């Protein structure tokens, strides 16, 4: 009872701590918007072809762009809180609408990537650490080293060359084959087929990271005093590894999984643009080409919020793994 109350308190505390970070990100977003050359009116005027200075001044007043910076910031904050992220003139749609439409594909890609990378990373790290300095360890370590050094976009392109163009196993791009009008189960299978290459591409780098981390963490924990105690109790090596060492070794891996979510979104920009996966990353790539900064900043904000949310989930998982967290 006491511990569950503590856990609730801990989660609440983390939630409160996230608020200033979210605020800071919104403010950062606002200033980036300011830094960009020209404002929305310039963009509008550019779209229209030509506009008189009077008309532009009128527009500025209408959008509140003649107000002092601090007031504009206040307005921006209010807008963000009410989920108004501005307007994309290229797509002729509110940014929030665009971003939310493209949210699900990215979430799907990220979930499958995290599961693959963390899951396999833990298993490979475990295998490497338990067979220290054997061929298994060497092979896994070399694999991790190489994937850790490979640019994501290049891996994606090479996978397309081999598995799509040469072997024809998986589709080259997109999330589903619209021309087939699949329904129900068939559609799921179709999406899953499209998902394979982007997921593998995006996971590779993180897989290497978690493998190396897990290996190092297992080796460090195996040298701790409590392992000698467990041995002195007459436990089998199997029990020592899987019950005593594993749980302690997982702690830094879980922490890292949270930290890396932000980087994962950055990676998804590249992977989605390589595979034309219709998510936030692809949208960002399009916005980049169209010089649609408003949209780019909207994506930036939403993905930052996503990271905050994922980190919160990771913290909760962590607090169930490490009893000492209650003290903090």
């Amino acid at each position, binding site marked *: 009872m006491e511990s569950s109350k503590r856990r609730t308190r801990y989660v609440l505390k983390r939630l409160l701590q996230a608020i200033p970070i979210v605020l800071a990100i919104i403010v950062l977003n606002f200033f980036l918007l300011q830094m960009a050359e020209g404002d929305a009116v310039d963009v509008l005027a550019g779209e229209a072809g030509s506009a008189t200075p009077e008309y532009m001044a009128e527009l500025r007043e209408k959008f509140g762009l003649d107000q002092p910076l601090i007031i504009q910031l206040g307005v921006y904050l209010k807008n963000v809180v009410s989920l108004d992220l501005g307007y994309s003139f290229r797509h002729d749609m509110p940014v929030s609408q665009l971003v939310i439409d493209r949210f699900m594909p990215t979430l799907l890609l990220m979930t499958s990537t995290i599961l693959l990378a963390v899951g396999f990373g833990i298993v490979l790290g475990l295998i490497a650490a338990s067979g220290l300095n054997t061929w298994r360890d060497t092979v896994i370590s070399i694999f991790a080293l190489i994937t850790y*050094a490979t640019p994501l*976009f*290049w891996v994606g*392109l090479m996978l397309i060359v081999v598995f799509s*163009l040469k072997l024809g196993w998986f589709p080259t791009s997109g999330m589903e084959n619209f021309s087939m009008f699949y329904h129900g189960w068939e559609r799921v299978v179709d999406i899953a087929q499209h998902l394979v290459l982007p997921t593998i591409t995006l996971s590779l780098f993180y897989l290497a990271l978690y493998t190396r981390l897990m290996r190092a963490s297992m080796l460090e924990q195996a040298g701790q005093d409590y392992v000698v105690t467990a041995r002195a109790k007459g436990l089998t090596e199997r029990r020592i590894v899987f019950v005593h060492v594993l749980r302690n070794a997982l702690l830094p891996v879980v922490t890292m999984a949270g*930290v890396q979510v932000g980087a994962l979104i950055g990676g998804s920009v590249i992977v989605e643009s390589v595979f034309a996966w219709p998510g936030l990353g692809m949208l960002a790539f399009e916005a980049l*080409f169209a010089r649609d900064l408003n949209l780019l900043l909207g994506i930036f904000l939403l993905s*930052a919020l996503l*990271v905050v949310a994922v980190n919160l989930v990771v913290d909760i998982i962590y607090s169930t793994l490490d009893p000492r967290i209650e003290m903090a």
Partner: protein
Amino acid sequence: MEFWKLFARNRSAVMGMVILVSILLMAISAPLFFPADPFSLVGQSMSPPGQNGFLLGSDSLGRDVAAGIAHGAKTSLLIGLLATLVAVFVGVIMGALAGYYGGLVDNLLMRTTEMFQTIPSFLFAILLVAIMKPSINSIVIAIAVVSWPAVARLVRGEFLSLRNREFVQACHTLGMGDIRIMLGEILPNCLSPIIVIGSLMVASAILIESGLAFLGLGDPNIMSWGFQIGAGRTLLRSAWWVCTFPGIAILLTVLAINLVGEGLNDALNPRLREHS
């Protein structure tokens, strides 16, 4: 020297060093072997490797892939090095102040790095370059901006633990000034981890740079590996070599730097030394 002996014991680190030096030589000698501008159209387009005088083939416009790789080496190494220097410089100052003084400075820094951990750093770099317009300067600044918090966190941690060490307290009881304690007593004791993180950061900076160039955010006047791959991706079906060889160049460079970084880590980290 003892350090080089330890470093040379690590075979993969030596291998990394050899690869890195060759790439460095390639970057330096590029104008010698490929005196023409790598953007110039020098012959038959879409030549496969080994034909029409193209060692690694040519792209859709007849640009020499090999020339691009040789000239791109300079770009990658230069940007990686510059961005790392800026990031390490800023990170060491911030981390040292935060770790040494604690309190408000520390709080501010920790919140900042937390924020940096939260925002997707590659997306942030894209934004910065897009806003500042792509150029060597903006790319270096963008990479440094997203990289310094990692250095600051590391240096802060080192300073935080070292400032409570008894030898630092002894300096306080002697009445030594803060600057002198920070620079003369504490900093020399955390140089090894800074060197290691710095070398690994060069590798990640090269990866970020190639990603930016791939997305079309490279300096338009300078040849880079990422640009080559980005420009060649539409030819994937017909001319695989345009994308493949620059990618291998990135892979080898980053791998070599990582190997050297790990070698440095093993050689500089006395804890590991005792175990090996």
